């Protein structure tokens, strides 16, 4: 069992600042969990506490139901893969993977078995006799993974392992690591600042900011139901649009109004909005670029939820275009079909798919829905 639990975990590097605050998380056996968030939010710190490379200031850490706060890292049954790693230049790839085990006095026969198994899983059997110099970036990365695999840990801890690779290789290695996870059947805790990486790799994602968990959920949950403006803006590319405006009631219906925007909100949401006490107040409306439409048919479907905006730039990207708009000083991006007729420096009417709208409190930025 390699369930990992963090209970009310805090990290203070100095007495007066908490870098990680009240971190609570229950990671299931064999789960692929991704920690994601902007630089400095405490991802590495959290991972290093799990590894035992940093002390836990407060709270409890359990690995496989065992309290490990005071257990030495090497006895935690974990293995780490970091962004920064070096290979032993004049050892063969075989020896590179074996060296850590040799230091731990594992028997020769056992080392041989583990190295060959790992090489097979990583598809680098044919490279075992080579020197690191002769390897490509992706192959070197595999060797670094191999060094972790031969430890046969219960939990893999990976801190941005792909960020030194070029974009194309990164995409390829993402898939490799996901496959690896399937084959090894172990728990993986994976740190990245790249939301695409998080979305494509994680069974569940933990979004962090300023040392605090913002939201935990599957990629779909987080994408479709972000807890707050931060999560909504961090996850998804291009980022969700946010418009500030007022929530007004007129003839029993609720509208979001801002200069250039008049959006009738779906009736199913009225109860939530009333309960949140935002009727007659300022709110933030969120809508993803793909839910802003210019097709006449959609405009007809949502005649009461349109915005009028100035087109600033149209960016053609193959099958689709990004249209950058200005709505009386607020910016808005729409993702439309490439055949769209929208031209720069014109004024257009666009429809918002009201079933895909999010509304947030203007002050706390927490989601109402």
């Amino acid at each position, binding site marked *: 069992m390699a369930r990992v639990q963090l209970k009310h975990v805090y990290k203070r*590097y*100095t*007495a*007066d*600042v*908490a870098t990680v605050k009240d971190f609570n998380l229950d990671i299931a056996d064999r789960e692929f969990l991704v920690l994601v968030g902007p630089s400095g939010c405490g991802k590495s710190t959290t991972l*290093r506490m799990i*590894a*035992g*490379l*940093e002390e836990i200031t407060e709270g409890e850490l359990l690995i496989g139901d065992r309290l490990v706060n005071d257990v*030495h*890292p*090497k006895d935690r049954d974990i*293995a*780490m*893969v*970091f*962004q*920064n*790693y*070096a290979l*032993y*230049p*004049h*050892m063969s790839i075989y020896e590179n993977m074996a*060296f*850590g085990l040799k*230091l731990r006095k594992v028997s020769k026969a056992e080392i041989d078995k583990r190295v060959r198994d790992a090489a097979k899983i990583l598809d680098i059997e044919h490279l075992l006799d080579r*020197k690191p*110099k002769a390897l490509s970036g992706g192959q070197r990365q595999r060797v670094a993974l191999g*060094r*972790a695999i031969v430890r046969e840990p219960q939990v893999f801890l990976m801190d941005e392992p792909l960020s030194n690779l070029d974009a194309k290789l990164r995409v390829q290695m993402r898939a490799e690591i996901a496959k690896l996870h399937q084959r090894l059947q172990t728990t993986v805790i994976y740190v990245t600042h790249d939301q695409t990486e998080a979305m494509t790799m994680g069974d569940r994602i933990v979004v962090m900011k*300023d040392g*605090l968990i913002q939201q935990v959920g599957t990629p779909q949950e987080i994408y479709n139901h972000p807890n707050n403006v931060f999560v909504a803006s961090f996850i998804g590319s291009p980022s969700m649009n946010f418009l500030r405006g007022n929530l007004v009631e007129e003839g029993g219906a609720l509208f979001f109004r801002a200069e250039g925007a008049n959006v009738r909100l779906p009736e199913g949401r009225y109860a939530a909005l009333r309960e949140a006490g935002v009727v007659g107040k300022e709110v933030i409306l969120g809508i993803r670029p793909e839910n802003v439409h210019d097709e006449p048919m959609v405009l007809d479907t949502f005649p009461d939820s349109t915005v009028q905006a100035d087109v600033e730039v149209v960016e053609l990207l193959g099958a689709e275009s990004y249209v950058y708009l200005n709505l009386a000083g607020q910016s808005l991006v729409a993702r439309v079909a490439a055949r769209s007729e929208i031209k720069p420096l014109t004024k257009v009417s666009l429809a918002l798919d009201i079933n895909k709208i999010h509304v947030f409190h203007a*002050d706390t930025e927490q989601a109402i829905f």
Partner: protein
Amino acid sequence: MIEQVRLAEILRSFGTMEEGAMTRPLCEDGVWWIPAGGRNRLRVPVAAMPPEMAQLLELYVYSSVEQESAHMRQEVLSWLGGEGEVSAERLAQVLPQIGWPGDAAVVVAVELRGDAEEELLGDAMALLGELLAHEEQEEGEGQAGLLVRSGSSTIRLLLPPERIEEEADGGLRAVLGTLEAELYAPAVAGVSAVKRLRDLAPACYEAEFALAAGRLYRSRESVHRYDRLGIARLLYGLPTEMRDDFLAEVLPGQVLESLSAELRETIFAFLEHGQQVADTARSLYIHRNTLLYRLDRVTELTGYDIRKPIQGWTLWVALTLCRSL
């Protein structure tokens, strides 16, 4: 070992005396040159000696050079380990003789954090030795770097700069990352780089200074270069007495104790966010009015208005110094 001058005396009858100073016996184009004291040397063509004599001479010179080189290596190692005094001139003279490539060098002090056991240090030495070995280097060929233990948890390395400067500090960070992943041992490093071997003498001190200053005042980094310490150099280099007087002036009596952890966090956050109210409030998850209230409270308690740059940074320096006490 026979003194070199004695060697010249023994071989005197096979050669001719000439003028010209030299430090060690040398064979060139079938001619031996032997130092003969003062500004003199003995010229002995190999053919002028019985073949057995020529072979013995070669054997003698070869083994004495080897011994001397081992001795010189030891001299450098004990200097690197902080045990022996070696002059700057001597270092610059010795290193090329033991095969040092080029004129530049880097001293790195790697400290294993936490309680480093004997065994761990041994493993770390082995690992660092392997990582920093030259790609093409065969055993016994040239000297790619030296490493030695120093104190209970530090390893010092003397390296040609290319070994760690390949990707700025990335090379060294990768070494530390590997140490962490392979040995489960968190490590930090201080670095001092010199362009000329004759400037090498203070490099050990500088690497240790960088390590100590960095550990206290740049703790979020793992590699601390002596020439990139920034404000940490001043904070760490401050004489104790001056530091204490400064603290007594800025935070007299119970002022420090009166500042709650929350207020201290606020002070750091406010200054690190460029004294911007909106940014700071957001980073602390508090309302802007709460922040304004806290800023006033700081002024009340300390007499410093951290909205003013000099006052703010004065308090920052004082609190940062306190963190390391």
